[in-house]
C-alpha cells in the first residue's frame, strides 16, 4: 500500500512538472520531449489504477505514434528560436496575464469541486458493470466494445473516416508534371508497342533511318 502511494506521488508529481515544462520550455523540441514524459507518467498512473490496457495504449499510441509525429513536425517547422528565447514576458505580456488568469480560475474551480466532492451528500449513482475476477482488462473491453458499445464504436469509426477525408481534401494536390506509376499501363505493354526495330545505316544515326 505504501509502495503504491509512493509511486502515485512520484508519477503524479512528474506528470505535473513535465506538463508545466511543456508550456514553459523555450525549445519546442524540448516541449515535445516533456510531453512524452508526461504521457509515460500518466500511463504509470493508469497502471496503478489497474487499467493496464489503457496504460499500454497510451504508451503505444500517444508516445509511440502521436508524440513522435509531433517531434517530426516540430523539427520540420521553421521556428524562429531567437524570438522564442526572448520568452513570453518580453514578447506578449498581455497574453501571459490572460493565460495565468484563466489558469487561476480553473485551479480555484478544481479546488472547489474537490471540496464539494469530498462532502458529497448523496451517494453516487453507480454505473457500469464491475469486473468479474479472472477477466483481464483487455478481455473485459473486448466483451463490451463490439456488443454493448457497438453504436458508439461505429460512430467513432465515422469520426476517424471524416478526419481522413478532410485531410485528403484539404492537402492532396495532383501535380500534372509529376510522373506516376500506372500499373494498368505497365501490364498492358506489349513487345510490339514498346519496341521498334530500326535499321541504322552507317553515319546517319537513328533519325536518318
Amino acid at each position: 500500500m505504501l509502495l503504491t502511494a509512493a509511486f502515485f506521488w512520484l508519477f503524479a508529481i512528474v506528470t505535473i512538472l513535465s506538463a508545466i515544462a511543456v508550456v514553459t520550455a523555450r525549445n519546442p523540441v524540448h516541449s515535445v520531449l516533456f510531453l512524452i514524459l508526461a504521457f509515460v507518467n500518466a500511463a504509470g498512473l493508469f497502471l496503478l489504477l489497474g487499467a493496464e490496457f489503457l496504460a499500454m495504449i497510451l504508451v503505444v499510441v500517444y508516445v509511440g505514434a502521436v508524440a513522435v509525429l509531433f517531434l517530426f513536425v516540430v523539427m520540420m517547422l521553421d521556428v524562429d528560436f531567437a524570438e522564442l528565447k526572448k520568452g513570453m514576458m518580453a514578447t506578449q505580456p498581455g497574453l501571459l496575464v490572460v493565460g495565468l488568469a484563466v489558469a487561476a480560475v480553473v485551479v480555484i474551480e478544481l479546488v472547489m469541486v474537490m471540496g464539494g466532492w469530498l462532502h458529497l451528500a448523496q451517494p453516487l449513482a453507480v454505473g457500469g458493470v464491475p469486473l468479474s475476477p479472472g477477466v483481464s482488462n483487455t478481455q473485459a473491453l473486448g466483451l463490451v466494445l463490439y456488443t454493448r458499445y457497438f453504436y458508439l464504436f461505429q460512430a467513432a469509426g465515422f469520426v476517424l473516416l471524416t478526419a481522413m477525408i478532410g485531410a485528403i481534401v484539404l492537402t492532396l494536390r495532383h501535380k500534372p508534371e509529376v510522373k506516376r506509376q500506372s500499373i494498368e499501363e505497365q501490364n498492358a505493354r506489349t513487345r510490339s508497342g514498346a519496341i521498334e526495330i530500326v535499321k541504322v545505316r552507317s553515319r546517319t544515326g537513328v533519325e536518318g533511318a
Partner: protein
Amino acid sequence: MTPFSFALAHSLPEAVLAIGALTLLMLGVFRAKDGRDWIISELAIVILGIAFILLFFDLKSNAVIWSGSFVDDAFGRFMKGLALAGSIGALVLSLDFMRREKIDLFEFPVLIVIATLGMLLLISARDLIALYLGLELMSLSLYVIAAFDRDNPRASEAGLKYFALGALSSGMLLYGASLIYGTAGTITFDGIAKAMTGVPSIGAVFGLVFLLSGLAFKMSLVPFHMWTPDVYEGAPTPVTTFFASAAKMAAVAIAVRIVMTAFPHVVPQWRQIIVFTSILSMAVGAFAAIGQTNIKRLMAYSSIGHMGFAMVGLAAANEAGVQGVLIYMAIYLVMTLGAFAAILSMRITGTYVENIGDLAGLSQRNGFMAFCLAAIMLSLAGIPPLAGFWAKFYAFSPAVNAGLYPLAVLGVLASTVACFYYLRICKIMYFDDPAKPFDRASPAVTGVLALSSLLIVLFSFWPGPLVSAAAAAAKSLF
C-alpha cells in the same frame, strides 16, 4: 438488449445516411473523373430525401435503443426533419455555386451527408458519449467544408479559425462532461437527472456551466460568438447556408434535450446561464449588425440575434417553451434558406458579390427577387403577419407566462433595434438608384427563394400543422 432489427427500425434514417455516405464516397473515388462532382450531389440529395421520408416510418412509438445511447422520439424526429431539410436546401443551393467557382469536388456532398449523420446522432443522443461523438462527427465535417475552397485565403482562414475555436469548445464540453460524470456517477441523461436533485453539488454546477458553454459555441451564442462573422464571411456561401441552417438545428436540439432531460431538477442553475447568453446574443445581434456592409456578415450577426430569441423560449423551462423553440427553429430555417438563396442570386457578370450596396434598386430590375427578399427580411425582423412574427410570439409568450418579464422586454427592444438593418435592406432595394443588374439565377436557387418566401407569407393562414407537430414533439421530452 433489444433485438438488432428493432434497433435498426428505429434508427433507419441514420443507417441510410451512414451507408449512403460510404457508397457515395466509393462512387466518387472510383468513378468520378478528376475528382469532380459527377452526380454525387444529386445522389446525396436523394439519400437525404430518403432519410427524411423514413422519419415518418413510425410516428407513434418512442424507443431507447443501442444500449441506451440513442433515443427515437417525437422531439428527435421533428428536429431531425429540420436538420435534413436544411442539408437538402444547402446542397440544392450549392449545385450551381460549386460548379461556377470550380470547387465541385465529390467530397463536398459526402462531407455534407456525414455532417448530417452527425447531426442526427447528436439530436438522438441520450448519454454524454453519444453526445460528444455526434458533435465531433458534425463539427469535424464542418471544419473541413469551411475551408473547402482551399486556394482562397479567406476560406482557409475561416476553416482554421473555426477549427481552433471549435477544438477549444470541445475541450470545455468534455471537461464539463467529466465533472458531471464525476459527481453523478453515470453518463446517461436519465441517470444524471436522478442524481442531480435538490441543491446540486458545486462540481455538477461547474460541469453544467462548461457543458453549456461548449454547446453555446456551436449555437454561436454570445459570449462564444466571436468566430461566427469571420467564418460566415470567409466560407463559400453554400457552406455558410449549411452552417446557419442545419448545424444550428442540431446544436439547439441537443441543448434543449440535455437541459430538459438531464437537468430538469436544477432549472435555476441553468436558467440563469440561458437568460444571460440570450440577452447578450440579442443585444449583439441587434447592435453589431448595424454597421455591416457585407450581407453574409450581416446574416452572421442576424443569426446570433435569432439564437438569442430562440433561447428566450428555452428559458421558460416548460413544455410551451420547448414548443416555442421548436417553432422558432422551423421558421428560422425557412427564412435562412430563403435569405441565402437570395445571396446566391447576387451575381454580376459571372462573379458572386456580397455587398449590401449591390442590391440597390433591385425592385426595378428584378421585382420578383426584390419582393421575396423583402418578405424574408421583414419576417426576420418579426413584422406581423409574416412567419417571423409568429416565431417570436411562440418563443416569448411562454417566457412571459413563466414570469421572465425583463427577458421578454429586452427581447422585444432588441428586436426593434434589429428592425433597422432589415428595413435598411428593403429601403436600398426599393428606393435607391439601380446598381449593375444581376445575372440570371439558376432555377434551383430561384425555386428555393420562391418556396421559402411563399411559406413565410402563407404561414399565418395555415399554422396548424407546424404548431401541432411542435406541440407533440415538445410533449415527448416531458
